[in-house]
């Protein structure tokens, strides 16, 4: 049996995933992180993006996180996200319209604060859309 690590994904509202996995991929602030069992302890912030959990047997589960923190211990990974969704629960239309709204605000060059907020929202929307895209590909190939 391949080595596994225990993965917990929680958001402020609920627990999304808890169980054994072979590998976790998460969007770290400094770049994408792939974590295998026996990884050294690590602490990082997450940016909006997709978390991929490769289960035993090769099946892959996809989650979307809007940001948060990631803690790695040699045998476990904890993702404390601000908000997270299972990829299949994501709403493409809502993400698409959120993206457009954010782009609109950025294009209008409104106040500094709104600009920063819109940028954050845009990053989230893009990350959601990418997650949906990837899930589609997975479905086609699988």
């Amino acid at each position, binding site marked *: 049996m391949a080595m596994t690590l225990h993965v917990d994904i929680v958001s402020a509202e609920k*627990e999304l995933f808890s169980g054994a996995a072979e590998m976790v991929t998460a969007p770290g602030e400094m770049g994408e992180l792939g974590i295998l069992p026996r990884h050294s*302890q690590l602490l990082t*912030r997450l940016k909006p993006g997709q978390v991929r959990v490769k289960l035993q047997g090769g099946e892959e589960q996809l989650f979307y996180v809007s940001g948060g*923190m990631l803690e790695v*211990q040699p045998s476990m990974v904890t993702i404390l996200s601000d908000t997270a969704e299972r990829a299949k629960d994501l709403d493409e239309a809502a993400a698409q319209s959120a993206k457009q709204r954010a782009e609109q605000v950025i294009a209008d060059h409104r106040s500094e604060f709104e600009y920063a907020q819109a940028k954050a929202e845009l990053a989230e929307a893009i990350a959601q859309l990418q997650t949906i895209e990837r899930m589609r590909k997975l479905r086609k190939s699988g």
Partner: protein
Amino acid sequence: MAGAKEIRTKIKSIKSTQKITKAMEMVAASKMRKAQERMRAARPYANKIRNVISHLSHAYTEYRSPGLVERELKRVGLIVISTDRGLCGGLNTNLFKATINAMQQWRTQGIEIDVCTVGTKAFQFFRRLKGNVVAHVSHLGDAPRFEDVLGPVKVMADAFAEGRVDAIYLVYNEFVNTMSQKPKIERLVPVTAEVKDAAPAHHWDYIYEPDPKELIELLLRRYGESVVYQALVENVACEMASRMVAMKSASDNAGTLIDELQLIYNKARQASITQELAEIVGGAAAV
């Protein structure tokens, strides 16, 4: 028929009280279900962040955050979470009793106490006690939002960061089940490993991306906020459960009271009828 009218009005007034307590019981029951759901939803995050923080306290971090170092206690900060409204049994009283006990212990050691209250009941109590209330929020409703706790947590966290308090404790009711709630006093910061240097072989530190100071402070702040938030929703669930139980026993008590009064009333009525009959028979016999 002496007193019959008084008894009747008494029964009536108890019946209307019973109606109110029954309604309150039902409202509390339905609110409790929702509060319990919220509590369950908040639990995983708080528990996981507690785990992470406990890992962190075991690590030999390159940046020693004040939140991870034990200091000499001169002044402690208390965050007391209570309800806004009464009529929920001994919930608040038990909580305050536990708090007072802890405070007395600190006082005998010459440690001063700053209190931050959440909910009107705690505020009233500590003001009467002439406690040093430094912050206060209330009227958070039955569904407190995460943002609601940021204010009081910040006041305490700032005091801690500036060295005005040397430890922060959180006081709230723990939801065991519907019938029982337990007052709980938990230390938030400083977080220290319970077993110190038990295994010197485990000298390890995290890899930080990007900056240790920023990350640890962020993590500690999140930890404080989420634990306080969880305590808050847990306390709401306790309030509703406790109120439901208190109102149920009040309704039951009203029921027995009504039964007793009804019995007295019936006896009085019977006695007066018997007396009337006796008088009539006596009168007929005389004629």
